[in-house]
């Protein structure tokens, strides 16, 4: 009888439950989308009860599908959309408001006020990251300020806070009836409330943000016992939890300093393992917790998030109607040999890493009558490659670590033209793994490692297999190196354009 692991990937648009075998292969998969609420401009909300129902339902279905294969599910791991904030009543299990999603920008004014405080330096000093509306702490503060009686109820210990993994684990382990209130260290590191060296809630950060400690879950390692799920028909130990991008890093087996992955989806998320020492950043990447195995030191990572990658291809499809489906961009781009001097900076709502310029706006530069839709398609794909180079250079400056190869995943990795461009523009090999579901796989690996399904991370490394590799072409790499200042100029122009 084989032993399997159930992974739940609670993402921004859907919840997926996947059963994996010991070889890291998918045995069954179920998925269910949830509603997106946009009550005001810039606000994005989810219904936590709907997400919990979808989790139960997809997990039960995936377990049932896997039951026909000769295997026993021995552990459950969770990967989740990061920084999305839930506050609920511990007695009834009902959220006091809908979940505030990581894309939500309602805390902008609050963040401006907090940043102006004379003691604001403590946030970067302790949490490792500047104050930003991107993280969960300001959202929690917003809920306490905005929902009637929330603060007094929180202080009396009637309310609980959590990011999605905390909400799901509490419900899976019994909810109001003895549910376990825990978070993992990667998710906790995205709240701005945790001391990034001790990995414990920091009393001064809590005071700075005005958060009562009674709300907070216990911080646990990412790999280790978290509780026992009793809500799925059969008791399953929950032994792994990671934020989704950290889960992808884990699923890509990036366990050594320098190893890095980039997920190319709507945006792109590049994480590089930096080992057990926290890197203080100066160049625009951010320091974050990569993972922690129970009883072992915390591993850190540098992260570079780019808001618009695949979203730019969607714009070419939906906004301009130049292509019928996203993959067709490669066909259009291959009608020409180069970008014809055209550059697209997709700063639709500012630029994230490494620039952090919210005011920047998108532009198409270098237009001449020579430029065709084929050149524009190339420029759109190249924008994702150039932005990857921006992030990689910032990380190299911060960590001093060489990048041996970039491990990639996500929908855009079937685009050979883009992947070759990334290899050339980084002058580094780009490799794609056999299992594209790296987020779910990372959650499964974390959970399976904790119960001894895999002996150690080396066993996980042996599970990782290349499905494709794009190697840099030296002449092309040199050419792109010479072209890079032109891209940098375009980025400066996009920042200047939005400046006033």
């Amino acid at each position: 009888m084989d032993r399997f692991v159930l992974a739940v990937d609670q993402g921004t648009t859907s919840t997926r439950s996947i059963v994996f075998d010991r070889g890291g292969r998918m045995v069954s998969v179920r998925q269910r989308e949830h509603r997106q609420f946009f009550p005001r401009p810039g606000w994005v909300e989810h219904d936590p009860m709907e997400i919990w129902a979808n989790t139960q339902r997809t997990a039960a279905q995936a377990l049932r599908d896997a039951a026909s294969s000769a295997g026993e599910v021995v552990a459950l791991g969770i990967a989740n959309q990061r920084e999305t904030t839930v506050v609920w009543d511990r007695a009834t299990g009902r959220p006091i408001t809908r979940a505030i999603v990581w894309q939500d920008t309602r805390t902008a004014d609050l963040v401006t006020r907090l940043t102006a405080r004379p003691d604001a330096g403590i946030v970067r000093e302790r949490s490792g990251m500047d104050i930003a509306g991107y993280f969960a702490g300001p959202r929690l503060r917003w809920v306490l300020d905005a929902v009637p009686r929330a603060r007094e109820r929180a202080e009396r210990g009637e309310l609980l806070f959590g990011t999605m993994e905390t909400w799901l684990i509490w419900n899976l382990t019994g909810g109001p009836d003895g549910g376990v209130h825990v978070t993992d260290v990667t998710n906790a590191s995205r709240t701005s409330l945790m001391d990034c060296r001790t990995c414990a809630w920091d009393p001064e950060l809590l005071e700075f943000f005005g958060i009562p400690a009674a709300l907070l879950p216990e911080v646990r390692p990412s790999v280790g016992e978290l509780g026992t799920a009793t809500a799925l028909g059969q008791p399953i130990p929950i032994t792994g939890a990671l934020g989704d991008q950290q889960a992808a890093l884990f699923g890509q087996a990036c366990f050594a300093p320098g190893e890095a992955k980039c997920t190319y989806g709507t945006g792109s998320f590049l994480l590089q393992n930096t080992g057990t020492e926290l890197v203080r950043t100066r160049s625009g990447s951010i320091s974050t917790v990569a993972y922690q195995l129970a009883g072992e030191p915390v591993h850190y990572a540098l992260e570079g998030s780019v808001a618009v990658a695949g979203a730019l291809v969607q714009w070419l499809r939906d906004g301009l109607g130049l292509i019928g489906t996203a993959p067709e961009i490669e066909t259009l781009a291959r009608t020409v040999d180069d970008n014809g001097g055209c550059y697209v900076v997709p700063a639709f709502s500012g630029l994230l890493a490494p620039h952090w310029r919210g005011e920047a706006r998108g532009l198409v530069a270098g237009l001449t009558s020579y430029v065709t839709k084929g050149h524009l398609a190339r420029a759109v794909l190249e924008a994702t490659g150039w932005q990857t180079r921006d992030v990689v250079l910032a990380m190299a400056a911060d960590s001093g670590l060489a990048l041996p190869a970039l491990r990639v995943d996500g929908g855009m990795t079937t685009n050979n033209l883009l992947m070759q461009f990334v290899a050339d523009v980084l002058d580094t090999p780009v490799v794609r793994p056999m299992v594209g579901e790296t987020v779910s796989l990372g959650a499964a690996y974390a959970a399976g490692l904790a119960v001894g399904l895999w002996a150690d991370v080396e066993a996980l490394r042996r599970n990782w297999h290349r499905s494709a590799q794009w190697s840099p072409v030296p002449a092309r790499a040199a050419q792109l190196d010479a072209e890079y200042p032109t891209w940098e100029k375009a980025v400066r122009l996009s920042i200047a354009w939005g400046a006033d």
Partner: protein
Amino acid sequence: MQSLERAAAILQVVAGSGGTLGVTDIAAAVGLPKTTAHSLLRTLLGVRFVEQDRAGRYALGQGLLRLGTGHLDVNELRSRASNWTDALASRSGQAVRLATLEGERVVVVHHVFRPDDSAQVLDVGTVLPADRTALGRVLVAFAPHRTVRGVDPARADVAAVRARGWAVEDSGWEAGAAGLAAPVRGSTGLVVAALGISGPAETVLDGHRGARPRLVAMVTESAQAISRELGWHG
């Protein structure tokens, strides 16, 4: 031919309405008795050139919209197939390729490495010999125009491939290597690509140099799964 002209007129009226139309309005607009219009609309419904809403009103159908985009983009094909090609490589332990006919040439459009981490080079864009590879043999056997110039049907094993629905090659392309392939069908049922695995002959073939049934099943099932993804319901 009169009915074809009438059907075309009906489609123009429905398209020109910009929304949905009832049968009475359609009949009046093209100057036909309602029963004739109704009978033509039933035929158009059958081939999905029009569709009906709950109120029974007509709009242009998906079949008509697909007509102009009948050509399947190879990059779209790769994207839609990649989940199954990865799984096939993982389960079979062999390299996986997807190939299409470009004119008379058999071209690799997707390639997944053999999952053993040995040095391998992506060969997307490579032209394969049509009669000596399993991928080429499938594409030749199921070519919509039935013959591919310059390929000897006997050497390409056309009759046998058509009869059993998959193709095999033994050291035809590369000494010591063997391959298996099966057809991938698009939404109309036409074969749009061939899906195949290849690897050392002793792993792909059994002791009698026949295809291993387990691998044949994997390849044909994966090809069917991709066909379903592309909208084939056969």
